C-alpha cells in the first residue's frame, strides 16, 4: 500500500497536499484499490465554495458510486480536466496524474485534524482489524 510521507490524509481516504494557500486533493491508493476501476468522475465547477466535509466530487466505478469530500474549506481554483476522458488515471497514478481538484484555502481551519502518513497507515490497520 503506497502512502507517501509528504501528504496528509482524511478518514474518508482523501489525500491533501498543502502549498502556498492551495490544497490539492485526490484519493489514496487504498481508496482507488478498494473502489475499483473508475469509469466516471463528476468534477465541481470552478470558483465554487465548499465547506469542510461537503461532497465535492461524485465518482463511479464498475462496482459502486462514491463521493470525494472537501478536506478543508475553500474555493475551487483548478480541476483535473483529464479525468473526464480518462478517469483511469486515478487508478494508475492516484497521487500524481490522478489528482482531482485544488481548493484555495488561505487559512484552512481543521488542517490539524488531518492525518500524516504514519497516522493514516495506523488508521488503515485499524480498519483491517475491524
Amino acid at each position, binding site marked *: 500500500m503506497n502512502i507517501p510521507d509528504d501528504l496528509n490524509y482524511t478518514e474518508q481516504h482523501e489525500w491533501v497536499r498543502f502549498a502556498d494557500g492551495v490544497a490539492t486533493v485526490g484519493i489514496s491508493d487504498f481508496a482507488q484499490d478498494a473502489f475499483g476501476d473508475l469509469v466516471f468522475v463528476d468534477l465541481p465547477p470552478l470558483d465554487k465554495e465548499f465547506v469542510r466535509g461537503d461532497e465535492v466530487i461524485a465518482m463511479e466505478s464498475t*462496482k*459502486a458510486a462514491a463521493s470525494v469530500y472537501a478536506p478543508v474549506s475553500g474555493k475551487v481554483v483548478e480541476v483535473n480536466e483529464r479525468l473526464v476522458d480518462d*478517469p483511469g488515471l486515478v487508478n494508475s497514478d492516484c497521487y500524481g496524474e490522478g489528482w482531482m481538484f485544488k481548493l484555495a484555502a488561505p487559512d484552512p481551519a481543521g488542517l490539524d485534524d488531518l492525518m500524516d502518513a504514519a497516522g493514516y497507515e495506523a488508521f488503515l490497520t485499524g480498519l483491517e482489524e475491524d
Partner: protein
Amino acid sequence: MKLIFDKSVPGRQAVRPTCSDIDTPVELAPHLLRDRPAELPELSELDVVRHFTALSRQNFGVDSGFYPLGSCTMKYNPKIADKVARLPGFADLHPLLPQLPGGAGLVRGALAVLHKCDLLLREICGMAEFTLQPLAGAHGELTGVMMMAAYHRDRGNDKRTVLIPDSGHGTNPASAAIAGFAIKTIPSDQNGLMSMDALAEAVDDNVAGVMLTCPNTLGLFNPHIHDICRMIHDVDGLMYCDGANLNAMLGRCRPGDLGFDIVHVNLHKTFATPHGGGGPGAGPVGVVERLVDYLPISVVRMRDDGSYTLDYDRPKSVGYTAPFYGSFGVITRAVAYMLMLGRDGLKAVADHATLNANYIRCKLRDHYDLPHDRICKHECVFSASRQAANGVRAMDIAKALIDRGIHPPTVYFPLTVKEAMMVEPTETESKETLDTFIDTMIELAQLAETDPQAFAAMPATTPVCRLDEVRAARTPDLASLSDHA
C-alpha cells in the same frame, strides 16, 4: 447473435396491411413528414417468432433457476396472480373510464381492487392510508419524501437535512436530494447498524427526517428503532421506512407500530409480480394519520352506499405524481396474492424467508467471511475477502455461479462490506435448492484455493464470456438504429 435488423431482407413481410378505407387524403404539413421511409426490419412471421424465442431461451429468471439476488426479493410469483390480472374485465379497461360522468359505476370492480389493496397494506404496515400511485420503489421514495417536505412546509418548519445510514440503498439520498433536501450520511457501527453516537451528534432542529431500511441491507433488524424514532420525533422530524425488505417481517411486525411515519412497499418484490426485466413495478406509500392530507391526487374512496369514487379535491396534496391510478396490473396481482395467502400465509412468508437466509448463513460461515455473524432476517451478507487475498474477488465468484446454473447474488453492496456478496434466498426455495447452492459455493471456495486462475475463464456457458466492464463503461459503443440503415 444477430440483431433483428441484421436479419432483415428487403421486401419480406409478415402481414399485408389493408388499404385505408378513408377516402379523404390527410394533408400533413411538410415539416411533419419523414425525409425517407422509416427503417424497420423486414421479416416473415416465422423469422420474428424464431428471433424472439431464441432471445427468450437466453434469458434467466426465477422460472428457470435459483435467483438469490440480495435486496431484490426474486421469489417465485404464483401464476394465478398473473391470471387474475389478465382477466379481460381488468386488463381491457380504458383508464379514462372512471373519470367520465357515471364512469365509476362501470369500473366498480377495478376501484374495489384499488381500495382493497389500500386496506390490506394499511393492516400489514400499520399505517392510516396508502397512495397506490407510485410506479416503482424509488418513485415511492420520492413521493414519500415530498410528503415529508409538504408536512414541514405546512407547519412552517425550516428543515433542510435528511439523515441516511451509509448502508442505505443509493436511491434514498437520490430521492431526498430531488425533493430538495441536503443529505447527511450516518456511518454504521461495528455491528452493522446505524451508529447511535453519530446519529445523536447529527440530530438537531434542521433534521427533517431519517430514511431507514428496515430490516437494513445487511438483513439486520435495528433493536434501537424505538429510540431512533423518539429522537427524531422530538425535533419534529419524520421517520421514513424503505420497505424494500418487507418480506422479512410480513405479519410479524409493522412499520407503523415501530414508530415510522412513512413507508413505501415494493409490491413487485413482496407481492407477486415477476420483476427484474425493468418493470413495471409499484411502490405504494403509506402514511400515519397526520400525513394523510398530503397523499397524492387521486385516492379511491368508498361511499356510504358501498360504491367507489376517486377523490381529486385534496388542497394539501403533493399533487399528481403519476398518470391515472398507479400500476394497476401489479396492484391486482398483489391483491390476489395477499388474499390467497391470507394472514397465516403472509406470516409464513416472513418465517420461511428468514429461516432460509439463516440456513445458508450457517452452512457457509466456515467457507466465506461473514462480517456480521448473527441471526439475520431475510438475507445475509458474506465477504469474499478471504478469496480475494488469493486473487478471486466477489465478481469472479458471481461469474462462476452463472456457469453452474445459479443467478449471482448482489455483489459489492452494501458498500459497508468489502467484497460483499448479498444472498437473499426467499421463502419459495426448497431445501434441495438451497443445498445445491451451498454445495456450489463451497466448491467455489475450494477452487479459489486450489486453482484461482480458473475463474478468469468463467462464465464459459453463456452466449458471451467475461465482458470488459471497465472498457464498456469508459468507452461505450452504443449501436443505434442509424448504424443499421
